[in-house]
């Protein structure tokens, strides 16, 4: 999955996302243990955690995280981010539905590109990008690129986490026997390293 910008530069994001995710899940479970939750609540908790973790990990370099985290300042330290993360997950968890994707309704500014990217063409795109309604068409394009890159990273981390946990839940030996993940996009997080990283992240929390 090579992209022009940045398979390499999403690594720090992935680590931050993983850490935020674990913190958020930990926090949710303190309120109610996971196996005591209803199916619906559990799924909602995990999804909120993933969304918030992603936005917090992205920080201030784009606009879409702010639409997901309206109450958090983007310029906080990693520690504060984790704390804001927890607070926000609690808030999101308390509110109904996937509040993280709430749309901001603000009039879009006009711009030179309007004649190439007329409003009606971008309507559908605005709906899927957090905060898309408030952007001019040019920003929308830039945000779309940024958002896609980070969504892919989010998918990658979630997949690895699920598989790491699942593999551990099976026979322990299978970890040794299983062939390592193919290195993707030049990144070095092969399965074994990932599990070690995952466990050490958990220990550091």
């Amino acid at each position, binding site marked *: 999955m090579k992209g022009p910008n940045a398979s390499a530069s999403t690594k720090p994001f992935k680590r931050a996302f993983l850490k935020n995710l674990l913190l958020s899940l930990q926090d949710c*479970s303190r309120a109610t243990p996971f196996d005591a939750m209803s199916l619906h609540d559990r799924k909602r908790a*995990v999804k909120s955690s993933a969304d918030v973790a992603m936005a917090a990990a992205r920080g201030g370099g784009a606009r879409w995280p702010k639409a997901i985290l309206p109450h958090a300042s983007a310029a906080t330290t990693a520690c504060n981010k984790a704390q804001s993360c927890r607070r926000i997950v609690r808030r999101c968890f308390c509110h109904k539905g996937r509040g993280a994707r709430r749309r901001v309704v603000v009039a879009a500014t006009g711009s030179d590109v309007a004649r190439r990217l007329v409003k009606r063409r971008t309507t559908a795109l605005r709906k899927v990008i957090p905060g898309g309604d408030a952007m001019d068409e040019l920003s929308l394009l830039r945000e779309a690129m940024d958002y896609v890159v980070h969504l892919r990273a989010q998918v990658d981390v979630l997949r690895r986490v699920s598989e790491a946990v699942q593999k551990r839940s099976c026979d322990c030996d299978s970890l040794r026997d299983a062939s390592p993940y193919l290195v993707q996009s030049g990144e070095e997080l092969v399965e074994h390293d990932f599990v070690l990283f995952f466990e050490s992240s*958990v220990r550091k929390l």
Partner: protein
Amino acid sequence: MSSRRSSRGSAAISEEEINELISKLQSLLPSARGRRGGSGSQAASTTKLLKETCSYIKSLHREVDDLSDRLSDLMAGMDHNSPGAEIIRSLLR
């Protein structure tokens, strides 16, 4: 086509900048991977590109949803004697 300055006085966006953004976006999409090193032509119209971006984002959202569901099932359904429980227990401490 001349590029008119916007009445708001913001910097005029050139056609090249738009084209560059569009081709960058295009290269991110799954359909671009099959034609790497290809003509580089912007044969895809802007509309098609936007539509494709939209559906790609939606499919990524679905993937995130599926993986979150899977993860939430794993977290709830752990066997207390399995090694997997150790990870989860330390996670949930």
